């Protein structure tokens, strides 16, 4: 197999963006599915939606798995989008790097918060 690391690493070529491009689509579809699943449960219940009904949606293990996957997908999706925005508008490399690092740290922290909340139910 051709060596693609160290001094022999290929630093140019096509498909450097395809992973992010595809991930953006896959995570988008995942979030859309999650939205429809939550929405369906809200629309198909009768009467007022109180704490029990709302929290009950996230109680089953299957829903926890879907929500967890959606949170991870959301973070990746936001990262790809924010990276694109920062690449377009922030030209000084140093500033951009700092902002990109802050976005990553912030998103990972937010994911932790969301997951913690999810497992309280």
């Amino acid at each position, binding site marked *: 197999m051709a060596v693609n690391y160290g001094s022999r690493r290929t630093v140019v070529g096509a498909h450097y963006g395809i992973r992010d491009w595809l991930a953006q689509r896959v995570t988008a579809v995942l979030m*859309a599915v999650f939205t429809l699943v939550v929405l369906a449960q809200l629309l198909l219940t009768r009467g007022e939606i*109180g*704490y029990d009904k709302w929290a009950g949606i996230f109680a089953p293990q299957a829903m926890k798995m879907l929500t967890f996957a959606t949170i991870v997908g959301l973070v990746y999706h936001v990262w790809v989008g924010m990276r694109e925005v920062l690449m377009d508008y922030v030209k000084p490399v140093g500033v951009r790097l700092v902002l990109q690092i802050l976005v990553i740290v912030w998103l990972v922290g937010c994911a932790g918060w969301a997951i913690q909340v999810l497992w*309280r139910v």
Partner: protein
Amino acid sequence: MTEAAGKRPEFRNINAFKDLPTYRWPAAAIVSGMHRFSGVVMFLLLPLVLWLFDKSISSEISFSRFRNAFNNGAGGVVLKLVVLVLIWAYLTHFFAGLRHVWSDVSHAAVTKQRGATTAKFSLAASLVLTVLLGAKLFGLY
């Protein structure tokens, strides 16, 4: 060698406020711009989303605190307005994203006519649903 036919004009550092309004903005361009803008808005509102998720789901007590936050006089109205912005951003991003994914898998969807039609549809759908959900949020029905 021929003489240079004048220096070609070079456009740099466009002024967003002076130059952007002079652009032509067909529906597809508006959808594209709003797609990006709504994404950034949701990124900025992420702490609010997590707070809403946290309060609404953690316990009965936090749920009633969540509910009261919306009915708390002027503060509640501000919260409702911010949530309305969030609803708009989500719907806009959702329909623009669906349109994107659809045009990724269908050659028919990327013709000039279809592109304009789907752009207008996604704008209309997100605005109508925003108005409907906003009316619900403010208790109009």
